């Protein structure tokens, strides 16, 4: 019989074909909605309990190739020669997986990050840190046939959160991903190993489960494995969605 997780939705389509479902939402590995010391969470998180609903086709379908609506942007953010961004060159090797651990080919991924000084190119960022004329810090791309993509960029700097009382964000990269269905949509962040600020970050520590926090931290390859001038980091991101095998 089909092994649907408790609470998992989906199932047979009546013709014995495989359909896509999603696993149960795992609270301990997901961020707490209201975070102490992160003021905006208490202004913007709904106070009423979320309404329980059955998952229907609306939740268990989703856009095919969203890049038909959102144009792809290049994956080399660091530039070359006189156009080279300031900072330490890194190569992020991202792999997107579903809940079965199966690679997701053709998944659309957006990323954005601060420059080496911790400054974003954004009207909201009026921090004193300097803008780098050779660094915009955003890419939109799709995974290859093995669910992988590679981004050549620079390591982002840490930055203080304005008005937060000396809360500094550790170096991190933002990711926004699409999976097979509407419930697969995911916005998350990737952190770097060994950063002292990781231990105090209010956003990273909004995730109660230590293993789940660890999964947000990328893994360095040996420098021997990469180009001479670049450090390579591997990172897996799992999005919701899995194949449901219909009951016979």
């Amino acid at each position, binding site marked *: 019989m089909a092994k649907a997780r408790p609470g998992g939705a989906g199932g047979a389509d009546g013709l014995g074909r495989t359909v896509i479902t999603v696993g149960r939402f795992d609270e301990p590995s997901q961020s707490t909605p209201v975070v102490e010391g992160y003021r905006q969470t208490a202004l913007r998180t709904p106070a009423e309990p979320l309404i329980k609903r059955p998952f229907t086709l609306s939740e268990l379908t989703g856009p095919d190739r969203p890049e038909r609506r959102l144009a792809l942007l290049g994956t080399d953010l660091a530039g070359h020669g006189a156009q080279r961004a300031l900072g330490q060159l890194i190569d992020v090797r991202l792999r997107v997986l579903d809940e079965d651990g199966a690679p997701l080919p053709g998944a659309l991924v957006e990323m954005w990050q601060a420059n080496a000084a911790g400054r974003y190119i954004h009207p909201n960022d009026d921090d004193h840190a300097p803008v780098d004329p050779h660094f915009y810090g955003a890419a939109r791309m799709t995974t290859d046939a093995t669910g992988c993509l590679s981004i050549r960029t620079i390591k982002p700097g840490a930055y203080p959160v304005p008005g937060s009382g000396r809360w500094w964000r550790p170096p991190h990269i933002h990711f926004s991903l699409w999976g097979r269905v509407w419930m697969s949509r995911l916005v998350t962040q990737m952190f770097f190993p060994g950063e002292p600020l990781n231990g105090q970050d209010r956003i990273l520590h909004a995730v109660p489960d230590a293993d789940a926090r660890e999964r947000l931290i990328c893994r360095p390859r040996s420098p021997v494995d990469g180009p001479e001038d670049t450090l390579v980091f591997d990172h897996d991101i799992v*999005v919701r969605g899995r194949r449901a095998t219909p009951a016979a």
Partner: protein
Amino acid sequence: MSAQPVMPSRLPAAEMTVGPFFPPRYSDAGANDLTRLEGEGARGEPIDIEGRVVQLDGAPTHNLIVEIWQADAAGIYAHPNDPRHLEADPNFFGWGRAATDADGRYAFRTIRPGQTRERDGTVRAPHINVLVLFSGLMRQLHTVVYFPDDGGAKDFDPLYRAVPGPRRAGVVAVAEAPGRYRFDIRLRGEGETPFFSLDDGGVR
């Protein structure tokens, strides 16, 4: 026994806020117009949906991201989970994105969706699925837009019926003119918009 996936199951990554620096470039011009894709226009009746998103203190939300997903004019999703997907309108994409301006306003132009039909024959009222991302939101918010002029179809819709009676008005758009609707969103506080759980609430 049917074949099971051989790979171990993996827990999805922890969701996190988009933060205040989501690139303005990502709310691409035209990403909020679902009536066109590459070439031909989509089938059906074009409609406009506009609204304002505010937070607890009533202040407008700036650079909040609204994403929508909906069926085509015949109520079909272009996705293999919909048994009718081969009949979906090839010129309707069903997905769009808008960002709020400094006054908290967003706008979409789309096609009036038809009634969707589940595998078990259950019919759902015409609706648009809404997902909200914002600085200070650690998790995405989900709500649904229903239409005031759907001939009573929403009274039989399982998600509409899941909303407590006094709050149901919060998921129904207001008709401003023919083909023109307003759907305001209150993230928190008095008149808070009903938002749905990210987990499956079980079998109907």
